[in-house]
Structures are given as C-alpha cells and as structure tokens.
C-alpha cells in the first residue's frame, strides 16, 4: 500500500472505484485501494461499514456493482452486470488468492489432510505425493501435524481455523485474504490463530486482513484502512491511524473498541 515514490515492488491487489449495492442498500460507495507484494493491509471499521463485502468483491464472491479489480496488474474481465466474464480467468485468479473465512468452512466430509490436498490435486493437478508432502509440512507449521487424519468436526474452532489457513496456503497463493478470521472463536482460542497469521506476516506474505483485533492490526499491518459507511474514511501506516487519528469518526471508533 506504500504510495511512497520509487516503490518498485510489483502490485498485488488493486481495487479501483469499487461500488456494491444489495438492492437499494449501497454498501460500498467507491473504494480504491492498492496492496503491493509484501504489504499487509488491515481493514478496520464498524459493523456494516462494508469491510467484509470489499474483501469478498476481490475474488468475486460478491459481484461488484461498479469498479475494477486487478490482481497482479491483471484486470478481471467483467460483464456489464459486473459478474466475471471469463470463467477460466476468474478461476485462475481465485486460485491465486487464499481466502480464510470467519466460519472456517472446512469441508466436513473430508479429513484435514483431504481438505488441504483437494484443490491442489483435483484442480491444480499437483501430483498427489507432492501435495501430501506440502500439506504435511504446512500442518506441522500450524501445529496440526497429528490431526491430518481427523475430520474437522472433531477439532476446536482454533484448530479448524489454523487448518483452514493451511488449506489456503497449500494453493501457494500470491496473496491471502482474511475475513474476520478470529471473530467466531472463543477468546482463549484467538491467540493461536493470530500467532499463525503473525508467522505468515513475518515471512513477508502479502495479506489483506479484515479484523476487529485492533492491537493485532497495529502490530502486524504495514498499512491500515478505516472504512466507514462504504468509504475509506482514513488510511495510513498503523502508527498514524492508531496513534494520531485525524477524523472524528475514527477517533470515536477507536474509543468505542477500546
């Protein structure tokens, strides 16, 4: 997100003039945002500010009403109604963006290992032994090596979310999208998931993170975006946004979340 002149890192995700309406309700009112490779963009904002919708528009889980999405400089081709025009292109772009959901969304009829290798083996055509080796490495990394053969329903929420992160990583994505990854977790399970995300941040992975964890956002983000009422109200480096907020709304928001 660094707009500093001379930043030559390639751009990873660019959102231009994004609008999204659900019927009469306009949730996003022209959002533009860019993340370069290695950026960690934290998106904060109140309930209903449009932050999750914005994230879901990036991989077209929601169809933008207007605006453009560019991944790695490549614009996603759209029809006049905003839906992806080219099935192969959108599938390829989705494969390059690892998405982590609030509700984990692991496939309940597959074991953790099967969850991890499903798309690599059946969509990306990675040889099965390679996919399994990669999956086992990632499971060890998120501390779930001994849970490979277990079905998701038998894991805690924190373990499921760590497995979901490993599943996204198994695709070797260009960037990770986190949609409130700790909001559905019991408080004592939040830390283990944040530790995994922090670990990914430390290796310089490009991430866009919608979160309510202000302390965490301040700690890991390279850039913080405050969304209010479908528009970017304020943005900047975390020290500025959290340490020296300019707008009254952001000041009020930061007070309210403590």
């Amino acid at each position, binding site marked *: 997100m660094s707009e500093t002149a001379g930043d030559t890192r390639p751009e990873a995700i660019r959102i231009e003039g994004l609008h999204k309406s659900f019927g009469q309700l306009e949730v996003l009112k022209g959002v533009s945002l860019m993340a370069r490779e290695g950026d960690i963009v934290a998106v904060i904002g109140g309930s209903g500010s449009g932050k999750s919708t914005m994230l879901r528009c990036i991989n077209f889980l929601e169809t933008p009403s207007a605006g453009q999405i560019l991944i790695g400089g490549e614009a996603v081709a759209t029809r006049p109604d905003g839906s992806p025009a080219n099935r192969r292109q959108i599938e390829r772009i989705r494969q390059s963006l690892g998405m982590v*959901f609030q509700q984990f*969304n692991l496939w309940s009829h597959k074991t953790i290992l099967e969850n991890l290798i499903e798309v690599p083996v059946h969509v990306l055509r990675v040889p099965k032994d390679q996919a399994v080796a990669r999956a086992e490495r990632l499971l060890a990394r998120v501390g779930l090596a001994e849970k490979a053969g277990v*079905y998701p329903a038998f894991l805690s929420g924190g373990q499921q979310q760590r497995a979901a992160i490993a599943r996204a990583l198994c695709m070797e994505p260009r960037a990770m999208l986190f949609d409130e990854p700790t909001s559905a977790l019991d408080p004592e399970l939040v830390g283990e998931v944040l530790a995994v995300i922090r670990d990914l941040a430390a290796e310089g992975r490009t991430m866009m993170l919608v979160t309510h964890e202000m302390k965490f956002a301040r700690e890991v983000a390279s850039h913080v975006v405050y969304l209010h009422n479908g528009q970017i109200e304020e943005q900047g480096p975390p020290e500025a946004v959290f340490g020296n907020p300019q707008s009254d709304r952001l000041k009020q928001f930061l007070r309210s979340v403590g």
Partner: protein
Amino acid sequence: MLALTASSTLELLQYSPPGWGANLLRGLMNSVLIALGAFGLGAVIGVGGAYGKLYGGPVLRDLLAIYTTVVRAVPELVLILILYYAVTDAVNQILLGLGQDRIQISGFAAGIAVLGIVQGAYATEVIRGAILSVPGGQVEAARAMGMPAGLLARRITLPLMLSAALPGLANLWLIATKDTALLAVVGFGELTQETRQAAGATKAYFTFFMAAGGLYLALSISSGWLFARAERWARRGQPELRG
C-alpha cells in the same frame, strides 16, 4: 395329510420342474434389475432436476415444476399404461409414417423408463431439499479456491447432500422394488406376474403368493441393511447426535 401338504408345498417351490422356484427367482431377478435401473435413472433425473429447479432459468424451472407436479399427481399404474401403450403406439405410428416396420418395445426397457421417470420426479424433490441443507460456507470455500462448477458439484455439494438425501432415497428404492409389480399389467415377467402364472397353473394361490411376499420382504430387509451402511458412510465426519 399335513405331511403331504408340506411336502407338496416344497415340491411346488423347488428350483427345477415340476417346481416353480426357477420361475419365481427369474421374476425376482427381473424385478430387482428393473428397480435398479429405475432407481438409477430416477437418481440421475433427480440430480439434474434438483440443480435445474435451484439454479436453472425460468423456463427450465417451469418445465420441471410441471414434470414433478404431473408425475406425482397421476397414479403410477395409469402412467405405466399411458407410457407403455400410448408411447408404443405413437412410436409405431411415426415408424409407419416413415415407411418403417412396427417395433415391439421390450417390457424391460419400458419398465425402467416408466418407473425411472416416476422416481425422477420424487428424487428431484428429495435431492433439492438435501442440496439446500448443505452449509453454504463450504460451497463458498470451494468457489473461492477456484474450483470449476462441475467439479464442485461432484466433489463437494453432492457428497455433502448425500447424508440428508439417503433416508428419502431409501424410501424411493423400496417403492421402486414394489412398483415393479405394476408391470404385471403389461404382461412383463417380473415377480408378481411369474407368481400369478405359477399360482394359476397349480391352483396353489396361498403357497405362491406367500412365497412372493417372503421374497419381497427379503429384498426390503437386505436393502435396509445396505442403506444403513451407506448412510453411515455418507455421515462420515459428522459427530453423532443423540437427542
């Protein structure tokens, strides 16, 4: 006298003539094959119908609504008579018009087609409901990973809906096995027809219809066992719920 009755009963049910056992078993085999064919055809129609009703355009949805409404409203016996006689007649009229010879539609193929169309209408509703019970987030996760729609249906949605669909599909299978008896009206040699012939020829009505009832019962009990196993498999990964 009693001993004589018992031994003559056994004789009547013997596998080889003068016993009629081979005929009954041939009838049972035909019934099972037709039920399998009809159930399979019904399941295929059901998956297509359910996806059509859920995600199809307005025209397709209307056509499917007409199909499920009409087929479920008209008695199977009437449908069998319509499809067997009327369709045979129509096909032959067309063939004659084209200067071809008349054909005789095999009772076997017609049986599978008719019962399959009936099964398809019920299966459409069973599977539509089961697809709606699949957690949307799990489907969304697959979409977000760039899984193509066909693969997503085959590897995620359909396996996930199976545990909800199987009890309804098990009902449909049992109905299919018994509906094969309706094909007796078009003279097809399934279990009921074979039983009627054996009973008529020997006047041992009680013996043969009891034997047929026993065979239907054995079929339904073994199917119940198979479906229970299938359901356990389809529910893998789901913790058991005890109310």
